[in-house]
């Protein structure tokens, strides 16, 4: 008598085959990316790449090139990424020059005029933008697509053994630049800031006592990248305005240790503000906490 087991064996075979296929595709011979882009780098390598872009910008003063390089990292907000990294570098006791370069590039990007910049002759990066997608393992028809953009556009579709190559004259392959809004006016060079306001603030939401600094120009607009120096008996710290863009381009703050006296001055001159120590505040319930100093400097 013939046993009727139905078509289930087909499903078993299908699943068995799928498992073999997946194991081969994921474990034995996964897709290999040998020509990755900077955007896929691990976050710490991205930070190093970004810092190098900023340091290179300090050397060559080429904002177009720096912008093109930053675009490779595909940050959602380039300005914020630079500013936050500068903050992290300073907070982590990292290289001050690096932090300064990151801050300077952030400010330069923020102040870029809202005009379309001329197409770069050669920014270094896209002199040849080559993207190669390889899937040449084990598959019977290797596919290799290569796109080159200098001085003509060459598209090669290689389906070995008979590769084809088409060269198209490069008519219009100019990069499109999105104009950035002007965020702040450039500070008047050489004009020292003067202290306009010194105020004690009591904000129970702040977790630690701060010295908050705001720098504004004569029009009341925030001025970024102003170096602030704080001294106390056993140390000194430097920081810059504009590195916390969410709080304003002219804003900077410093965390005080209670019961320590600080003197603050701006690096480009002006009067030093001494006798700054964490003020004591009292909440409605009688609870005491440390307050904050707000110093507003204005450029006449």
């Amino acid at each position, binding site marked *: 008598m013939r046993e009727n087991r139905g078509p289930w064996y087909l499903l078993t075979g299908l699943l068995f085959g799928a498992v073999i296929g997946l194991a081969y595709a994921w474990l034995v011979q996964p897709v290999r990316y040998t020509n990755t882009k900077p955007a896929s780098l691990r976050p710490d390598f991205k930070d190093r790449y970004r810092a190098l872009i900023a*340091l290179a910008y300090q050397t060559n003063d080429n904002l177009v090139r720096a912008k093109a390089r930053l675009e490779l990292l595909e940050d959602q907000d380039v300005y914020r990424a630079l500013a936050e990294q500068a903050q992290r570098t300073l907070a982590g006791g990292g290289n001050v020059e690096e932090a300064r370069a990151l801050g300077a590039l952030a400010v330069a990007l923020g102040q870029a005029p809202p005009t379309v910049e001329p197409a770069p002759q050669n920014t270094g990066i896209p002199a040849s933008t080559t993207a190669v997608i390889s899937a040449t393992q084990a*598959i019977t028809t290797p596919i290799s697509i290569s796109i080159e953009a200098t001085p003509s556009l060459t598209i090669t579709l290689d389906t070995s053994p008979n590769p084809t190559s088409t060269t198209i004259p490069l008519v219009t392959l100019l990069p499109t630049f999105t104009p950035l809004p002007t965020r702040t006016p450039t500070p008047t060079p050489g004009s020292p800031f003067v202290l306009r306001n010194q105020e004690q603030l009591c904000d129970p939401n702040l977790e630690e006592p701060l010295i908050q600094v705001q720098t504004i120009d004569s029009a009341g607009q925030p001025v970024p990248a102003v170096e602030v120096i704080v001294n106390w008996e056993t140390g000194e710290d430097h920081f810059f305005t504009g590195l916390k863009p969410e709080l304003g381009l002219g804003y900077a703050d410093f965390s005080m240790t209670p019961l320590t006296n600080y003197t603050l001055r701006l690096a480009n001159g002006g009067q030093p503000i001494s006798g700054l120590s964490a003020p004591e505040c009292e909440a409605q319930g009688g609870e005491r906490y440390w307050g904050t100093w707000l110093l507003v400097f204005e450029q006449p």
Partner: protein
Amino acid sequence: MSRWVRFILAILLGIIAGLLYGWQFNPVKYVNTTPDSLGVDYKTDYVLMVSEVYTTEADLDLAARRLALLGGASPQESVNQAILFAESHGYTDADVSTMRKLLADLQLYRPAVGDAAP
């Protein structure tokens, strides 16, 4: 068609489906790559940045450590490859010259004992 033939065909169909899914629809994704896997054009630009920074910092140790991230046999080799790529892809003379300066200095470079890549 016998039951065994259909069974084998089902396995083959499953393998094709698995490969298609694994390679095409949901391939292994590399999101935390290292600089040594960058494309040669990006590596060249990285070398150019290191060279540009070197012109002001003049710190060969630091430049070599930065170049070490690119993998390669040696920093000199990385710069050499970058120069070759730059020359064949229309980089400006100034950029190539900046990289050549770094290469020339690296050829005289002897790393101090105990230096480690960052």
